C-alpha cells in the first residue's frame, strides 16, 4: 500500500506533556498507518498512549516530533483556524460517553456538524432524520438523549459522526459503555455505514469482543506501536476470526 492510499500515516510521531521533571512522554515515536476502506483498531493497556495518538491524528493536539499525514495533509502545516476547518470538513468523532448535547433531540444532535458547516437548520435536521432512519432510530429522532438507552445514544453519536460525510472517523472506546449485544450492534452499524472506499475508520478499544470487525489491529504499549496484525478484511459475523485476532494480539 503506497502512502497515497493511506488515510493516516505516522512516522516516528512523538508527543510529550509538560517540561522538566513534570515532562511526560506520551508518544515515543509512533509508526502507524490507517488505510481507506478499513477499520483500523488501536489496542493496548490504559495509559499506553492510544487516546493521545488519536488526538494528535485528529488535530486536537499538536505533535512534538515526527511526521504525520492525515488525508494527504500535513497537520503541522495548518494554522489553528485551518485545523478547525479541516476537522469540521473531514473528521467524525464517536466518544465513549457519547457526548451528546442533552438539550438537543437526537436529530438535532446529529445535525450539529452540518450546522457548524453553515447548513440551514431545517435542511440539517431533515438529513439527520433520514440517517437516523437508516440506523433504525426513526421513531426516536425527536427524543432527548436522556430518554434513550446506551445503545441508542451511541447510534445517535455514530450518526453524528457520519452525517457530514467525513473521510476519517475516529472512535474512542465506542462499545465500552455498552453490553455485548449493543456493542455488537453498534460495531456492525459502524462497519456497514462507515467503511467506504474513500473513508477510513480508527477505533481505540479495549473490548476484545469486537476485534473480529477489524481489518488491522495495532497494539500499543508505553507510547509505541509494538505489534500490527492484519485481519483479512474484517468479520462482521462475530465468529472465530475475532478470537484468532484476540489470541494473536
Amino acid at each position, binding site marked *: 500500500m503506497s502512502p497515497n492510499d493511506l488515510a493516516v500515516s505516522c512516522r516516528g510521531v512523538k508527543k510529550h506533556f509538560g517540561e522538566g521533571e513534570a515532562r511526560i512522554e506520551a508518544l515515543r515515536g509512533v509508526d502507524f498507518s490507517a488505510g481507506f476502506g478499513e477499520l483500523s483498531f488501536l489496542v493496548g493497556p490504559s495509559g499506553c498512549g492510544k487516546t493521545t495518538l*488519536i488526538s494528535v491524528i485528529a488535530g*486536537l*493536539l499538536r505533535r512534538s516530533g515526527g511526521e504525520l499525514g492525515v488525508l494527504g495533509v500535513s497537520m503541522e502545516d495548518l494554522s489553528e*483556524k485551518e485545523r478547525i476547518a479541516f476537522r469540521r470538513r473531514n473528521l467524525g*468523532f464517536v466518544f465513549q460517553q457519547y457526548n451528546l*448535547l442533552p*438539550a438537543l433531540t437526537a436529530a438535532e444532535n446529529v445535525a450539529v*456538524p452540518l450546522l*457548524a458547516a453553515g447548513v440551514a437548520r431545517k435542511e440539517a435536521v431533515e438529513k439527520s432524520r433520514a440517517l437516523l432512519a437508516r440506523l433504525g432510530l426513526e421513531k426516536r429522532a425527536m427524543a432527548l438523549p436522556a430518554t434513550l438507552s446506551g445503545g441508542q445514544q451511541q447510534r445517535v453519536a455514530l450518526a453524528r459522526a457520519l452525517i457530514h460525510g467525513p473521510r476519517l472517523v475516529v472512535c474512542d472506546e465506542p462499545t465500552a459503555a455498552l453490553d455485548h449485544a449493543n456493542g455488537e450492534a453498534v460495531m456492525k452499524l459502524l462497519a456497514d455505514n462507515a467503511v467506504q472506499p474513500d473513508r477510513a475508520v480508527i477505533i481505540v478499544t479495549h473490548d476484545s469482543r469486537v476485534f473480529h470487525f477489524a481489518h488491522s489491529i495495532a497494539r500499543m504499549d508505553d507510547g509505541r506501536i509494538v505489534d500490527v496484525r492484519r485481519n483479512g478484511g474484517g468479520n462482521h459475523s462475530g465468529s472465530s476470526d475475532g478470537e484468532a485476532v484476540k489470541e494473536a494480539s
Partner: protein
Amino acid sequence: MNFVALRMLTGDRAKYFGLVFAIAFCTFLLENQTSIFANILKRTASQILDVTDAEVWVMDPQTEYWEQTKALKDTDLTRVRGVPGVQWAVRLFKGNPVARTLSGKFAVSFLVGLDDATLAGAPRKMLMGSWERLREPDSVIVDKAGYVLLFPGEPLELGRTLEMNDHKVTIVGISDASAPFVSLPVMHARYSEAVNFLGRERTQLSFIIAQPVPEVTPEELTARITGQTALRARTTDEFMWDCIVYYLKHTGIPVNFGITIAVALVVGTVVAGQTFYLFTVENLKQFGTLKAIGVGNSRLVGMILLQAASVAALGFAIGTGIAATFFEITLHILATRGIVLMWQCVALTGACILFVTVVASVLSIRRVLVLEPAEVFRG
C-alpha cells in the same frame, strides 16, 4: 448554531431559571434601593419643586437648603423687582407652626405663605376644593397626608377647623402636595395670614420667588440678582440640588443607603455572575465536544455571548417589571407616595447588569477558549 446555544441554555430548566432569577433579583434589588434613595433625597426639595409658577428663588446669602431660612428684609423684594429681566417677583413665607384639631390632636406643620395678590406658588394638584379659595379669610389648604395625620380614620372633608397660634383656620382645600422629607402636614395660606399663624418675628420674609422675562434665562437672572442685591439667587433646579447635597453632606442617609446599595450590588452581581460562570463551567464538556467537531472559537464566543445576553435581557426585564410593580403598589400608600422607579436608576442598573454579564462572559469565554478539545476523550 444560535439555536444550539439557546437550547443549551434552556435545556436544564433548573439552571436556566436559577440564572434568570439571579439576574432578576439583582435587578430588582438595585433598582429598588437606588430609586428609594434618590426619591428620598428628592423629597428634601419637594416644596421647592411644587412651586411651578416661578423659576428663580432668592434667599439670604447664608441659606443652604429649604429648611434653613433667615428672613429677608421687606425692601429686598423691591430690590429684586428692580433687577432687569425680572418679569415678576413675590414673597414666599415658610414656617413650622403647630396645628391643633378640636379633638386635641396636633402636629408641627410646614406652612407656606403665598403672595396675597397673586397666590403664586399655590398647590396646583388639588384633591378637594380649589387653591383660589385661599382668598377667603382664615383659610388654609392641607395636603392629604397631613389631613390623615390630623384626622386619622376620618373621611376627607372641607370646612373642618384647626387652631394655629390662637387663630382658628378653616380647611378650604386638600392638596396632593409632594411628600416632604419629614412626614409633616404641608399647608398653604396667604402670606398675610401665614405670618400670624406662627409666633411673630421682626421680619418674616423667607423667600422671594421670581420669574424672568421670556428673553432672559433663569440662570442669567440669578446671576443678575446676586450681582445687584448680594442676595443668594438660585434656579429651581439649583435650589433642589442644594437641598440634596446638604442632606448628603450633613446626614447619615447616604452612608446607610450607600451600604445597602453596595450590598445589593455585590450580592446581586456575585450571584448573577457566578451562576452564569458556573453554568458555562458545567457545560465545558459540551463546548469541548463542539470544539472537537470543528466549531471555531469565534462561533463559540458568539454562542456564549448570546446565552449571556439572553439571560441578562430576560432577567433584567423581569427584575424591572417586579420593581415597577413594587413602586406602583407603594405609590398609593401615603407614607411612600411619590417614590417612583426612576429611569436613571433603571439605566444605572442596566449598566451594572451589562457589566456583570460582560465580566461573567469574559471569564466563561476564557475557560472555553483555553479548553483543549482533546479533553473530550478523557471522559
